[in-house]
């Protein structure tokens, strides 16, 4: 593979993979890494040795994706593993997540930073309960692009009708889940059909190969909507003679664009000011957009610090001490009804009480259960929180940063839940 180091633009795509055990997820990833020459000689040697030790006939590319001793011993994936590969067009980060229901939380974790989700389906089995579950999680986390790979086409004689039937079933699921941009590709991960090279066995398929697709799919520039949002992480005060009165607000733009001269409102104090300068290191820049880590100075000496949010006067977020979320429970200790937790929304922290569990999702059937209000590990439910002070936030659909939060247990300090604001 040629790496372009000649200065041309190369973008970054983060994707997550989900599939049930034996659908061929590891084989697909192994093939991508292998064909893009991202498996190095010493890793290959290592794989060959391990495969032999485990008594396998062929070198098992799926061993590449299991990182921990327990995973190798038990032959399962427990936690998200991150993989990297690049083609001349793009660099890819794969969050490889376990597909089993008892690891739903890890799927949610992997999906939280993904631009695209890959869901594998065994062509012999078609749409199963877990396919619905994986699709639901991808849509819950607001992943725009979902690629359904109908795998093991070699085992169904590369049949177009089989593919079409599954595609129609999937289209109904995608429709119900309001998935914006679903795609369907027939592949054989094992033989390589339509993974990197177009398949000679499926000339009826006119679409892109899997790799070509992920190389060319448009990455939505701002994942976080158009409303300008700037959460302050920390205040920079050099207190040196050269920068005596300097007071810079460090943060990463969470939506829209900011420019010097822009009028802003600082939340929660509601004080108005204007942007004096925007810096990236020593460089003064003309604008900062979603994703940029910058330092902003203001025209007035006003009170702002970690947890503050800069927004334009005409485009305010929601302000409330009651917040509705779709929550995924992560902890072994179940949710305590009316329990107290710490809530973190971007850099802003408060205390909160669980006011109500409104309904629980059966993520295999997409049914809502209004009778069960218990929440244990891997459960997904709609809940209402009451916070100790009003928070400023956006719906998750509009902004993944100002619209997401975590709940932290005060005594163990652990992250017990993740929430998407509805």
């Amino acid at each position, binding site marked *: 593979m040629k790496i372009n180091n000649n200065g041309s633009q190369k973008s*970054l795509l983060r994707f997550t993979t989900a599939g049930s055990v034996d659908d061929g997820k590891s084989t697909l990833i192994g093939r991508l890494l292998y064909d893009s020459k991202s498996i190095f*000689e010493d890793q290959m040697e290592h794989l060959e040795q391990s495969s032999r030790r485990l008594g396998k006939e062929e070198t098992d590319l799926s061993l*590449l994706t299991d990182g921990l001793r327990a995973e190798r011993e038990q032959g399962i994936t427990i936690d998200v593993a991150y993989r990297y590969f690049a083609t001349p067009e793009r660099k890819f980060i794969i969050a490889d997540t376990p597909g089993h229901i008892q690891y739903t939380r890890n799927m949610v*974790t992997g999906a*939280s930073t993904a631009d695209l989700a890959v869901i594998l389906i065994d062509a012999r089995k078609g749409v199963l309960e877990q396919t619905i579950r994986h699709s639901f999680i991808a849509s819950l986390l607001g992943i725009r692009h979902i690629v359904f790979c109908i795998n093991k086409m070699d085992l169904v004689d590369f049949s177009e009708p089989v593919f079409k039937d599954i595609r129609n079933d999937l289209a109904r699921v995608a429709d119900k889940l309001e998935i914006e941009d679903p795609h369907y590709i027939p592949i054989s991960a094992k033989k390589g059909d339509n993974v990197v090279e177009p398949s000679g066995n499926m000339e009826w398929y006119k679409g892109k190969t899997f790799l070509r697709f992920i190389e060319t799919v448009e990455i939505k520039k701002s994942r976080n909507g158009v409303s300008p949002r700037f959460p302050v*992480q920390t205040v920079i005060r050099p207190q040196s003679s050269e920068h005596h009165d300097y007071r810079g607000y460090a943060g990463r733009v969470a939506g829209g664009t900011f420019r010097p001269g822009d009028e802003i409102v600082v939340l929660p104090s509601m004080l108005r000011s204007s942007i004096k300068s925007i810096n990236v*290191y020593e460089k003064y820049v003309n604008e900062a957009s979603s994703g940029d880590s910058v330092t902003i100075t203001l025209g007035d000496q006003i009170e702002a610090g970690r947890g503050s949010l800069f927004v334009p006067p005409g485009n305010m977020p929601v302000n409330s001490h009651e917040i509705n979320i779709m929550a995924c429970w992560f902890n072994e200790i179940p949710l305590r009804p009316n329990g107290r937790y710490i809530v973190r929304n971007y850099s802003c922290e408060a205390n909160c009480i669980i006011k109500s569990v409104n309904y629980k999702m059966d993520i295999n059937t997409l049914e809502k259960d209004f009778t069960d209000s218990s929440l244990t590990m891997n459960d997904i439910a709609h809940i209402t929180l009451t916070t100790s002070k009003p928070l400023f936030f956006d719906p998750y659909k509009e902004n993944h940063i100002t619209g997401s939060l975590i709940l932290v247990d005060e005594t163990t*300090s652990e*992250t017990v839940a993740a929430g998407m604001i509805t």
Partner: protein
Amino acid sequence: MNINNEHLKELENEAIFVMREVAAQFERKVILFSGGKDSIVLVHLAKKAFWPARIPFSLLHIDTGHNFEETLEFRDNLASELGVELLVRYVQDSINKGRVTEEQGVNASRNKAQSVTLLDAIEELKIDVAIGGGRRDEEKARAKERFFSHRNEFGQWDPKNQRPELWNIFNGRKNMGEHFRVFPISNWTELDVWQYIMSESIILPSLYYTHKRKIFRRNDVFLAWAPFMKLKPTEEVFETAVRCRTIGDITCTGVTLSGAQTLEEIVSEIAATRVTERGGRYDDKRSEAAMEDRKREGYF
């Protein structure tokens, strides 16, 4: 090459975000500084994250005593240029105090002993966060590592029970005696690091460029020779043009036969290479789970 390489920009934005979270969430903060390229990149990112202020972290070097002379000089100069505190703790002191026993034999390395010295330093200095240059592409146990990686009161990592880490909300809360390791360049590959060094014109120790050095071959790896190293009877020392691909403890750092004089040449070489960076690290060849085991014990 140009700085406006989109993927490098995004990786930089992410790393700076993480650095600033560390500054905001912790008290006693250090960058684990080995003098290698990854830790030099960390320092560069910290400079960018907090300008015009001084970086809010001290540098902590766990010195095995088996150094390339030049890295120490580089380290001292960098610390004084930044005006930050440089803390050095020595593996030799841990050995003298009986905290750890020195490995013997030809493959003896102080790599594992470093964990003890590091954990002692963390306790002594009341460090609650140590920023490291670990990357997920380096090794399979590292592929599972969080950005904010929790360590219990014994300094241990529990890979099967890591805190979930969603979006970019990093939870650094902890109980007394616990600490965090933070890895801002988790998502960078070796090639990304080199391309970044090139695009930002970051100064590196000259060891990374081609130079003449006495080396010998052990199994498939070329190791730099130093007077205190024990050789096997079949091993022969010879001098040739090499450069370092990583810099760490001299006893386990492999060198690459190379004539690369510029960053452009190094980047081309890395892009074409077929062996991982850690393939040249003798310490990882010991067993399938060597890294996982060391990390559980408190390694970098």
